[in-house]
């Protein structure tokens, strides 16, 4: 569904992504893991169209979308939940949700009900300003807002950032549900490699702008080097 070929991105004067290629099949959960500064976020931002690629191509359904503006990509069904949640703090929860669907002209009530079903907490707080929500609730709102554009592929940039372990579990559970119930393809980047690898069907490991390893989620979970580098477990 999504194919990246030899993507190079410059970000803030340095070459953040140094020519990576990978694929995201339809209805799968794919994760990119790696340390800080590996170029994960830059990759997602480039796919979303927020940053221009220096070289390489992005194909969505075999169509080259490398030079499309961000809003056209949203229309095609690519949505990014940016890092650090980035909800609109001085707008109400409901307004935030509505903004997510701003490119759509059809009736939204059904979709709003659907995301409320996914996150009942948001329905309780629909009148509250988003800035007053807890971190976990803001992350839920960011996901709900992303879902409102009825994406075919949803990209999540570190959804576990700064959240309590129990909340992280909840969020990952929901991500899996979205994938299974709606058939939305998920491209997830995470520093919390353990969680990400557990739900991913396929995973890529990034290091300083390059993909250094790939495999299925369970394969990488077993891999000695990955365990040592990202999961904090010693080699036996």
């Amino acid at each position: 569904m999504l194919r990246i070929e030899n993507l190079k991105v410059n970000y803030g004067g340095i070459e953040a992504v140094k020519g990576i290629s990978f694929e995201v099949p339809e209805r799968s959960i794919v994760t990119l893991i790696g340390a800080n500064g590996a170029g994960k976020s830059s990759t997602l931002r480039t796919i979303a169209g927020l940053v221009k690629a220096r070289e390489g191509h992005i194909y969505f359904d075999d169509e080259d979308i490398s030079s499309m503006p961000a809003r056209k990509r949203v229309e095609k069904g690519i949505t990014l939940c940016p890092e650090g949640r980035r909800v609109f703090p001085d707008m109400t929860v409901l307004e935030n949700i509505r903004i997510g669907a701003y490119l759509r002209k059809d009736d939204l009530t059904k979709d709003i009900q659907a995301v409320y079903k996914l996150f009942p907490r948001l329905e309780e707080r629909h009148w509250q300003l988003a800035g007053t929500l807890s971190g976990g609730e803001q992350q839920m709102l960011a996901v709900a807002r992303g879902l409102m554009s009825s994406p075919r592929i949803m990209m999540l940039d570190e959804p576990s950032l700064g959240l309590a372990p129990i909340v992280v579990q909840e969020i990952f559970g929901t991500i899996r549900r979205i994938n299974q119930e709606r058939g939305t393809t998920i491209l997830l980047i995470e520093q919390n490699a353990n969680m990400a690898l557990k739900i991913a069907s396929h995973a890529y490991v990034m290091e300083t702008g390059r993909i250094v390893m790939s495999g299925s989620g369970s394969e990488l979970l077993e891999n000695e080097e990955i365990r040592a580098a990202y999961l904090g477990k010693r080699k036996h």
Partner: protein
Amino acid sequence: MDQSFHAMGERRRNIVLSLCLAGLLLACCGYLQANKYEYNYAISIIERSLIYAVVAVSMNLVNGFTGLFSLGQAGFMAIGAYVTAILTIPTANRPSVYYISGIHPWIENLHAPALLALILGGLAAAACAALIGIPVLRLKSDYLAIATLGFAEIIRALIAAPMMDRITNGSYGLKSIPGFSSIFQVLALAACSIGLMVLLINSSYGRMFKAIREDEIAAEAMGINLFRTKELSFVISSFFAGISGGMLAMFMRSIDSKTFQVSLTYDILLIVVIGGIGSVTGSVLGAFLVTAGREILRFFDEPFFLGGVQVPLFRPGFRMVIFSLLLMIVVLFYSKGLMGTNEFSWNSICRFFGRKERKKQEGRVPHDGAK
């Protein structure tokens, strides 16, 4: 069910209260208008406040709701004012207005009714905004402020330039502009303009503006066209700034390029900040407080005798010291302006008084739930 019934009752109460308030204000204006020779001064303060309210709300649309720090308001007002003035000065009076350099043949017989002239003035300001928006709106925060400020000064310099003498009458300015015949004209124009802007703010466009203000990156990731949305906000704001400039020209009846100096923009900015950045009712309130405050404080400028001794501080200019002190106090204690980002609503007022009522009634059996 009970709740929705309650909400409906609240809405009906709000409509009744709003109509009462509007009726009361109209009656007050009617009274002032009927005795207009007696209340000349009050009428002029109200008219000026209304005009400032329009431009303050327009500035709030860009600065408060879209989060673009623009300081070009005086420039757009100048465009609106000059277009309105040139189109409405009676043809018979034109030779006496342009007595120095003569009038340009293009505009010699160009005349339009006041309302049309105001709208054309707004459109001219909007067109200029659309043009300069293309390069300028790519800038952020302070840089945008400096660029728009510079633009406003360029407009002013162009108006005063000798080459424009036969159109704008250069530094002599324009006079004999027909004024408003009653306070209701100003009131209607201001109400229409502010009403249209409120409709815009509450529409899905308003949500887009706010999203850009809160987080540009997230807004872009949601598929909002940043540039087009910013340009839209900027152009609409400038349209209403142009309208209010035209109204100011009709109110003052004579204008020159000095009317639209940077200090005018600062005055408007002051109103927006005092009222609350991101609050329409705040801007309207601010316009009245700032305009009226300046006038009411005038007694500080007059000599003041206490027990036969003249207090030395009371001399022309002293009121501005007091005025500035008051502003500082407001900003210190209401750092988000008087209204913050809230809007005036009957519900919040009723809640405020309701709390006091409930305290009085504590201990009694609540009977409104039983019905």
